[in-house]
């Protein structure tokens, strides 16, 4: 009987992390940013039916970077679990924190399984604050959760970025972000940020209304706060 090679737990973790890092390095970024009326989400994506940003529930949106086949399953399962929870209890009982935990447990379990490869994805789970909550209540705050491939998550404030060049984009946003931007100004800031980073990279992806995917969670009278912005709408906003 042969003795199995000893590999230290640190080594296993490091190997998996390196593996995912190489995968994610290729991934197009998604930016979420708090603006005056809610949360704006922007991704580099020229395609019109395969989305990186999606609606999960009344006030909750999902954004992903990495392998589409891997995050698409999590998107659909997130909608399923959210609808089941809302059907069992009440729609307001479905929260981003709960959904983040659900994803986190799953991604953590996959990352630790000895016979599975870790998911080469990063997620953002965003929730629009309740405008009708009592003044000063934390329920009014928007929520942004960033979930890494191994299920480790963090709560972000004001803005967050996932994808290969997330650090570069975050650095620029940190310098230029201000509170309570109008939607057009927020969109301009994000597209400018993308352009700056693109100018430094080799492929220099051109940022136009046709090559970005834009959606928002905005305070409105509708129950479903998620809205996709059409190319025309993005064009109008950027011309402002």
């Amino acid at each position, binding site marked *: 009987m042969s003795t199995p090679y000893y590999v230290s737990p640190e080594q296993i973790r490091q190997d998996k992390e390196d593996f995912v890092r190489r995968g994610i390095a290729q991934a197009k970024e998604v930016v979420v940013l708090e603006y005056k009326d809610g949360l704006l989400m922007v991704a580099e994506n020229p395609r019109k039916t395969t989305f990186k940003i999606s609606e999960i529930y009344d006030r909750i949106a999902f954004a992903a970077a990495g392998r589409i086949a891997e995050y698409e399953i999590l998107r659909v399962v997130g*909608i399923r679990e959210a609808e089941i929870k809302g059907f069992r209890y009440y729609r307001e009982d479905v929260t981003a924190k709960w959904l983040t935990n659900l994803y986190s447990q799953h991604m953590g379990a996959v990352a630790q399984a000895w016979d599975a490869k870790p998911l080469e994805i990063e997620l953002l789970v965003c929730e629009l604050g309740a405008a009708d909550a009592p003044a000063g209540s934390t329920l009014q705050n928007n929520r942004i959760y960033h979930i890494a491939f191994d299920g480790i998550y963090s709560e972000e404030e004001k803005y967050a970025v996932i994808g290969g060049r997330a650090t570069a984009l975050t650095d620029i946003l940190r310098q230029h972000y201000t509170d309570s931007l109008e939607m057009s100004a927020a969109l301009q800031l994000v597209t400018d940020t993308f352009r700056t980073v693109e100018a430094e990279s080799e492929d220099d992806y051109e940022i136009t209304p046709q090559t970005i995917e834009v959606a928002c969670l905005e305070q409105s009278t509708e129950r479903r706060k998620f809205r996709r912005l059409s190319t025309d709408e993005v064009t109008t906003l950027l011309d402002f």
Partner: protein
Amino acid sequence: MLDLSDYGTSDFFQILKRRHPELLTTLNSPDAVSNPHVPESSFQPYEGTTVLAVVYDAGVVMAGDRQATEGYQVGERRIQKVYPVDRHAAVAVAGAAGPCIEMARLFQVEVEFYEKTEGVSLSLEGQANFLSHLVRANLGLAMQGLMVLPLFAGYDVKRQRGRIFKYDAIGGRYEEDNYYAIGSGGKDARSTLKKCYTPQMNRQDALKIVIEALWDAADEDIATGGPDLIRKIFPTLYTVTKAGVTEVPEATVETLYREFISRL
């Protein structure tokens, strides 16, 4: 780890049936079919009645009175019988109130679940057909006297017009071209609609005949509630057009009723 096994289906009802049958206790109960019996007379759940829909030039109006009865008693004065389903459809329900509300709620979630997972809306006809399955799933309870009958109406985005679908107790689905009303006051409401309906009527005229039809239903049928001018309770009216599903403001409904009463 999450169970990813039913990741291919966009059918929420099927997911609940397989994974959470406890959430579908009234719908989908095969025991009731094999063991039909008439409940004791002391068993009187809330029942809701008269709901109707009328096609007009921009789409369709859907309306319902607000009363639920408990035998010969008024059970509830403000019940809601008309529910928006998505941007272009609404459903109204008549029958045993509990299962009615459950069916409307499940139907709404089903349609929204489909839209979110597939990225496109379920067609109006697809929604109408799916509702057939829900009615059929309630067959067991219907045979025990807990009937649920929906009326479904929407704006067909492809065909650019309002459409109405009615159902029978075992899920048969039939399309009506101009108007329809169901529930115990349905026949009275239909008589009024038959006399007053004209094709391609405008919104205001459509609202007027809807108000009048509900008035006549309440006048003839003891289970249907009329406008309650003292408590300020009025029937719910929704318009479904290309622009979406919109509730007609209560103040507008009140004005319409006051005008109508002054003409009596």
